[in-house]
């Protein structure tokens, strides 16, 4: 039922672009809420990876304070990577994706809608969960606030870039590992500026400039990534 209604909306030529995008987002949200496991897995993974560091390295307060933001950022990055494989997988398997490519609206807008839905389902929960883990890693209040802000700006970039990789590896065997290989180098700037901003905040420096730079990354990703994602999607679908 859920997949039928938006499909009808998409096939209709008179539907506005905005409504079509909204239909895609709503459909993705609804179908993931039905399969809660997909929604919870990245969060659990995030939690567990963070737990490994005090156990594996050292539970000392000084170490955790120093490494905490890095740990949280790397864990957030990895759990985003883990969830990317599902971005197009279900739609690809049941043929919905082919329908989406055929509909009259520009494909990049639908890629944007899919990325938005992905962020709402994985990035946003990570941002919400991060303060709890930040407290467990003995981060200071100010650092936690800046960390959440950087995650809030940075995780959409991760979803947007990740959508390109997910589209490129669609329908390939061992797509998950390949996806990580392709995407990790592209994630490095976001990681550097995410953790760097928090480090600057911990030292008491002004962070507005860094946050503005991260926002610039976001704008750049918003404007360019959907086009690359749409091109990649077309190539992968013509191949299968």
């Amino acid at each position, binding site marked *: 039922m859920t997949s039928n209604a938006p499909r009808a909306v998409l096939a209709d030529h008179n539907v506005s672009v905005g409504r079509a995008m909204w239909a895609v987002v709503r459909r993705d949200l609804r179908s993931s809420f039905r399969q809660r496991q997909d929604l919870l897995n990245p969060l659990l993974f995030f939690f567990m990876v963070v737990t490994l560091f005090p156990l594996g390295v050292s539970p000392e307060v000084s170490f955790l304070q120093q490494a905490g933001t890095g740990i949280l950022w790397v864990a957030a990055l990895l759990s985003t990577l883990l969830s990317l494989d599902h971005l197009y997988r279900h739609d690809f398997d049941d043929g919905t994706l082919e329908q989406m490519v055929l509909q009259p609206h520009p494909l990049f807008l639908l890629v944007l809608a899919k990325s938005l839905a992905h962020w709402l389902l994985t990035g946003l929960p990570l941002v919400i969960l991060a303060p709890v883990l930040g407290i467990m890693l003995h981060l200071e209040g100010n650092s936690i606030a800046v960390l959440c802000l950087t995650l809030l700006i940075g995780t959409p970039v991760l979803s947007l870039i990740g959508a390109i990789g997910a589209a490129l590896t669609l329908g390939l065997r061992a797509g998950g590992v390949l996806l990580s290989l392709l995407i990790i180098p592209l994630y490095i700037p976001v990681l550097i*500026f995410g953790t760097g901003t928090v480090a600057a905040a911990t030292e008491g420096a002004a962070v507005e400039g860094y946050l503005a730079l991260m926002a610039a990354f976001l704008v750049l990703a918003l404007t360019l990534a959907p086009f*690359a994602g749409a091109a990649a999607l077309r190539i992968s679908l013509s191949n299968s």
Partner: protein
Amino acid sequence: MWTLFHKFGSPKWFFGIAGRLMPWLLALGLGLLVAGLVWGLAFAPKDYLQGNSYRIIFIHVPSAFLAQSVYLMMAVAAVVTLVWRMKLADLFVQAVAPVGAVLTFLALFTGAVWGKPTWGTWWIWDARLTSMLILLFLYFGAIVLGSAISDEKASARAVAVLILVGVVNIPIIKYSVEWWNTLHQPATFKLTEKPSMPPEMWVPLLLSVLGLYLWFGWLACYRMQTEILRRERRTRWVRELVRAEGH
């Protein structure tokens, strides 16, 4: 103009032209490379700060230069693949990607070995070494994606998209790595920077850079020819060529 374009795009035409160019490229490239390296190894004066270990520059800088420009060339070819679907462009990307990866590895390796006598450690998270490492990852990504997709056309276009995304990211990566480096290590001293290099040092360097570029041109032509032979198996001229080579 379009006929010319088609001519340039035709594998047969390229095969012939490459065959005529290759001996020159190889002879000139190897000649310049050997001249530059021998000059650099044996005749260039010793550096007053780093001693003789600086002689690694004569292979480190050419490898690093070429590694980066090969990625840029691949990006140009990727645009051509996506926009005009020219066969030669995607042949080029496929033929050249492993060569670029090897060159990047060479730049990293020589940088690390140079670091040991200069910095006292094999590896330092220096901005340039780190961004070369990320470039190596980008090369690996392109090679692995290309071999994972079995359909030749789809593979070429997917790799083209990936390379373009990578090339947009390269300046951002470079900038962010440099920023990160100044954040963590305020005072690193650089491998090559010197206010002014005497001509006894930069002339052999120039020679070896030129030589390596020409040698790369030869190898790229050779590998593209091989790919053409493999892909254009069914055309008459390739059949005749194969038959002639056999006897």
